[in-house]
């Protein structure tokens, strides 16, 4: 999160044009390689990974904890979204009436995000804050414990099955460009994820709380001396991170239409990989990493290595950690790796 602020001017100019150019080039290459439909698929998957990765990277940036339970927070969010859709909104399938759909989606996103934000803050309060000054290993182990507890609470109450999630946004709506079918759902998913990322970026860079988060990530003691309420700032970080995982959960449900209690482990691991790839602690990097991982995975599947997808992603992680532990964009926390 602690983005470099005092870089040399030439670097900044280079950065301004370099990164967008690389990203555009990469996207064009992928579009050519994968074809339009797979490209959209990858973008949607990437949006989900990116949203989860943001939570990892923010928490790691601020307290240097790999929040193992974060993937499971995302998983719980998918189940919360089921509860909101069916119980609160009384919907079990696509809502075709546009005004109702808009209101339903707003309620669905808001309630799930708020609930998950509170869950995240609660976890922080109970499992991590008491260990604030303990060495790293201790909170990491409690995080694993929390992950197990979350998974099994869901398994206990819902069962170990694949559960259907109501897809409020119809999967049928689509238009065609040339030969390819473009479902509106994909555009909606990618759009809402990008919207949340922009809001987050603005929040971190423009608000007072955002500044507090950045300074806490840089130097906790110094920011405490400058009057930043550390505990409050960390709690807000968890609120935001878990809220984003909540949004990712809703999106997963809308897009894939199903979920299960083990969902969080794999997705969480990949999202964490994304965060590391982008440069852990760096929010823009996490988003970038999320999309990159998705392209790798979808690409692997498209070229017939679908079963190896996970292995390829984790190998990429290992290679990255060895040769560039600061990730693609790097960050001030990178040198601690």
């Amino acid at each position, binding site marked *: 999160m602690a983005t470099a602020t005092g870089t040399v001017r030439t670097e900044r100019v280079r950065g301004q044009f370099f990164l967008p150019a690389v990203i555009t080039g990469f996207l064009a290459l992928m579009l050519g390689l994968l074809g339009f439909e797979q490209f959209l698929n990858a973008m949607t998957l990437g949006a989900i990974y990116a949203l989860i990765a943001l939570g990892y990277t923010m928490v790691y940036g601020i307290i240097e904890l*790999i929040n193992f339970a974060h993937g499971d927070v995302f998983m719980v969010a998918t189940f919360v979204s089921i509860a909101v859709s069916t119980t609160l909104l009384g919907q079990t399938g696509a809502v075709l009436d546009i005004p109702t759909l808009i209101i339903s989606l707003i309620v669905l996103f808001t309630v799930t995000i708020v609930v998950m934000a509170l869950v995240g803050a609660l976890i922080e309060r109970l499992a991590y804050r008491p260990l604030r000054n303990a060495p790293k*290993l201790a909170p990491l182990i409690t995080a694993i414990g929390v992950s*197990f507890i979350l998974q099994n609470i869901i398994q206990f109450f819902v069962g170990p099955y694949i559960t259907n999630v109501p897809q409020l946004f119809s999967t049928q709506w689509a238009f065609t460009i040339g030969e390819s079918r473009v479902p509106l759902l994909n555009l909606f998913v990618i759009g809402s994820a990008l919207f949340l990322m922009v809001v987050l970026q603005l929040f971190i860079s423009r608000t007072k709380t955002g500044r507090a988060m950045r300074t806490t990530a840089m130097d906790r003691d110094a920011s405490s001396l400058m009057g930043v309420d550390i505990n409050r700032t960390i709690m807000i970080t968890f609120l935001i991170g878990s809220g984003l995982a909540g949004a990712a959960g809703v999106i997963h449900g809308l897009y894939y239409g199903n979920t299960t209690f083990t969902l969080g482990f794999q997705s969480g691991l990949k999202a964490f990989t994304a965060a590391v790839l982008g440069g852990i602690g760096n929010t823009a990097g996490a988003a970038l990493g999320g999309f990159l991982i998705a392209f790798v995975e979808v690409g692997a599947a498209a070229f017939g290595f679908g079963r190896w997808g996970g292995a390829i992603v984790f190998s990429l992680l290992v290679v990255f950690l060895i040769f560039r532990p600061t990730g693609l964009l790097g960050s001030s926390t990178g040198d601690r790796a």
Partner: protein
Amino acid sequence: MSTLTARFAPLRARSNAYFAQHRSLGVLVAVITIGVALPLISRIPPFGDLQSMNAWVNAFTIAGIYALLAVGLNVVIGFAGLLDLGYAAFFALGGYTYAIVASPFFDIHLPFWPMLIVGALIGAMFGIFLGAPTLRLRGDYLAIVTLGFGEIVPIVLLNADPFTGGTNGLGGVDKPVIPGILEFTLINPWPFYVLMMVMIALVMTVVFRLQDSRIGRAWDAVREDELAAESSGVNTVISKLQAFAVGAAIAGFVGVFNAAKLTIVAPDQFKFVVSISAVAAVVLGGMGNPVGVAVGAFVIYLVQSIFLKQLNTLVDNFNIPVLQEIDFLEFQYVLYGIVLVLMMLKRPQGIFPAKRRIRIFKDTVGGAK
């Protein structure tokens, strides 16, 4: 009672002093005592009623596998202070190594005994292979790399069907044979039990001797303060690599035994849950204390495989509908979770704390920020 304790106090002090001097002998005596005592205890009413003696001996053998895994992982976590979340991968590599060269799959039948060593070597090799590039990274990045490795290995085992048999794994793995004297069978659990006890004695001796050696002191130093250790002349990378290799070697060693005991290896046996159970056992037993973690793992296995199962049958006998629906085995992972969290919050040094100071837990202001 107190007079009795007082009477034996000098004797205890003397025996303690003696075994502190002769730890390998102490391990041998302890393992023989426990090895004889366990089957006898399993005959005492509350235990004896649960299942037959053979079933108990079988359960003890498998519990021993977990105990050894915990002891091996303890070298990495407890001695050197590195968090390894993919430990099951090395366990898998050991098992597959033996299964590939001793099963009908390729119709190769190499003998069991040398393969124990080969399994350990393969484990150590992969430990070094994974550790060499990543141990330069500090702290929790290592946890993630090992976690990734722990994920990659089952995926590879699952997908490399020509060598690993895919989902079904490799079946019909050869059982150990002592030529002309004894053939291990599935029906008689005793030979495996005795072999397990011998392995425990062996591994424990090695681990204790390592702990007392120059290498062990280097691990202590690296764990307590890497920077200070480095400036005192400890080659931290080599030292961590040694811990990683020793831990992986023990997992490979046990993996071979596991394959021979179960006569089948399949990717499902080596999932993340196995790694995490081992971590739970180490945390619960008391990081850094080999005996503590072994007991921790032993107890965890017996509780989950026997008592929770028995609880199910017990509850099924009462006709209470709500309770009957609950599968207590499903609770084991919630229990792991709760145990991990509570132990870290309330008693981070574990049930049987290590004698040597581990700053990681006691010093609340120090450590990595």
